[in-house]
């Protein structure tokens, strides 16, 4: 704190005269020590790179096995034909339609609810204990096992709302599952919008909603999309909630509306793998389906990376 009385009397002393140099220690160059540290650095480099290689090897083995097993089974017919109990005739057309149907529910529901929640928490909610409590719980929800969301979906959507094991029930359950991820990533994207942009808008007489719509969202959208795509790719690969919802093993009818029963790619993989005991060729069908699913996920993730890079930081 500045003292008024001293200011007038010019008692400020900013000179460094009289400050003694500290001489209590001295840095020495120790060659042994430096050599030891170089060695340690090299060892850690090897350990770290081996860890990376380990993960890559496991992935390579997995891809190789799947590739070999699905070879010859993955063709155009496999993608366009419906299920059959005869392996040679079976295709995953129904499962693809089912997965697309799921996404048609999940994308609008999670984007609307997730982004709206994030906007409320970041822009409107008054900062305080309540807001912190809600935020922590949303983050906690993101780590709840998917099987629990399956049970929730079974209770609320299948039984209480009587939606059975329809695409709508599955889609809403999946939406609940990925909603926390979309909320958290949208919150991060909104938080990353610099405050001086909001101030510029407020200073011209804009209210909160105008500022959010015309300044915050345009800047935050790449981040929101990146997070949402990653969340959706999780929804595409999820199996457990659908198993709990009782999505049937064998659907011979292609779903036409969102109220129809359906099957999805991960479910198909799961049941074909189970039934390998009965018919050995089912393993090849499962492998071929895995390739399709991996390709879809790969494309979606690449898309997310492209968006992220394209709109990266301009501040």
């Amino acid at each position: 704190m500045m003292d008024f009385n001293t200011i007038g009397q010019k008692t400020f002393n900013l000179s460094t005269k009289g400050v003694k140099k500290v001489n209590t220690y001295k840095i020495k160059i120790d060659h042994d020590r430096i050599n030891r540290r170089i060695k340690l650095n090299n060892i850690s480099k090897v350990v770290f790179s081996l860890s990376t290689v380990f993960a890559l090897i496991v992935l390579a083995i997995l891809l190789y096995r799947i590739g070999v097993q699905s070879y010859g089974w993955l063709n155009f017919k496999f993608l366009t034909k419906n299920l059959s109990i005869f392996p040679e005739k079976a295709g995953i057309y129904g499962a693809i339609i089912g997965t697309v149907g799921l996404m048609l529910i999940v994308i609008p529901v999670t984007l609307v609810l997730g982004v709206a929640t994030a906007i409320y928490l970041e822009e409107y909610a008054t900062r305080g204990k309540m807001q912190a409590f809600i935020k922590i719980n949303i983050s906690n929800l993101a780590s709840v096992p998917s099987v629990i969301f399956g049970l929730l979906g079974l209770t609320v959507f299948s039984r209480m709302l009587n939606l059975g094991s329809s695409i709508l029930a599955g889609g809403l359950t999946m939406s609940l599952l990925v909603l926390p991820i979309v909320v958290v990533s949208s919150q991060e994207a909104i938080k990353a919008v610099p405050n001086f942009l909001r101030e510029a808008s407020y200073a011209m007489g804009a209210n909160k909603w105008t500022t959010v719509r015309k300044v915050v969202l345009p800047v935050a959208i790449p981040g929101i999309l990146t997070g949402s795509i990653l969340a959706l790719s999780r929804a595409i690969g999820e199996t457990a909630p659908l198993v709990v919802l009782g999505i049937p093993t064998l659907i011979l009818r292609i779903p036409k509306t969102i109220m129809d029963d359906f099957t999805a790619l991960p479910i198909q993989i799961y049941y074909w793998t189970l039934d390998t005991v009965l018919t050995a060729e089912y393993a090849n069908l499962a492998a071929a389906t895995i390739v399709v699913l991996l390709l879809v996920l790969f494309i979606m993730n690449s898309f997310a990376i492209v968006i992220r890079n394209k709109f990266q930081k301009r501040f």
Partner: protein
Amino acid sequence: MTNIETNNHNIVYDVEGLNLWYGDDQALKNINMQIEKNEVTAIIGPSGCGKSTFIKTLNRMIENIPIVRTSGEIRYHGKNIFDKSMRVEELRTMVGMVFQKPNPFPKSIFENVVYGPRIHGIKDKKILMEITESSLRSAALWDEVKDRLHDNAYGLSGGQQQRLCIARCLAVQPDVILMDEPTSALDPIATSKIEELIDRLKEDYTISIVTHSMQQAARISDKTAFFLMGELIEFDNTKVIFSNPRDQRTEDYITGRFG
């Protein structure tokens, strides 16, 4: 404190007994001053003296910080801005602000200028284009950017960005322009351009400017207010403040003995 004789019609802001707290810390203590029409009022003082807080109170931007409390009155053309009937959106449309760091939107130069008019309901492309040209001309930026109105504003230099922010502010046709250290992030050449601009703008606008540079205050302002630790120590004609201050602390500050 000096009492300045004024014709009441010329008073834009009449601040009376203004106190402001950040939580328990009092940042402004019983401020009384009047800001007159078509004058440049400089607000000087050392860091942390409350000068930025004060200028942000004039358009209630300070309320974006949730822990802020105020007491007293600020009458803008006779109307208390803290009154329930006063909407901040209206106040801020009349009272524009230019910030310390140039803060254009990550949009084109054109989109930046028409942001304000658009939110206030002007949709006609032709009118928006006219607004863009006149605002950029008033901000002495038109000649430099007229061929690239649709380029991103972040391609401009810092000084140009700040003049764009002034143009964006002018496009809303404000009555008062508040400037919070508008040249502190700029080099001397860009600074002198902004200073020339302020000198021209005061014919049409009432300007209140916070500055760290006493030379700047002396060059461009008609009246100067000296703040110290949340108090308004002295407020008078700039010439008086810089040649014959009444308060010892003002003299110490302007002669560079502290701050």
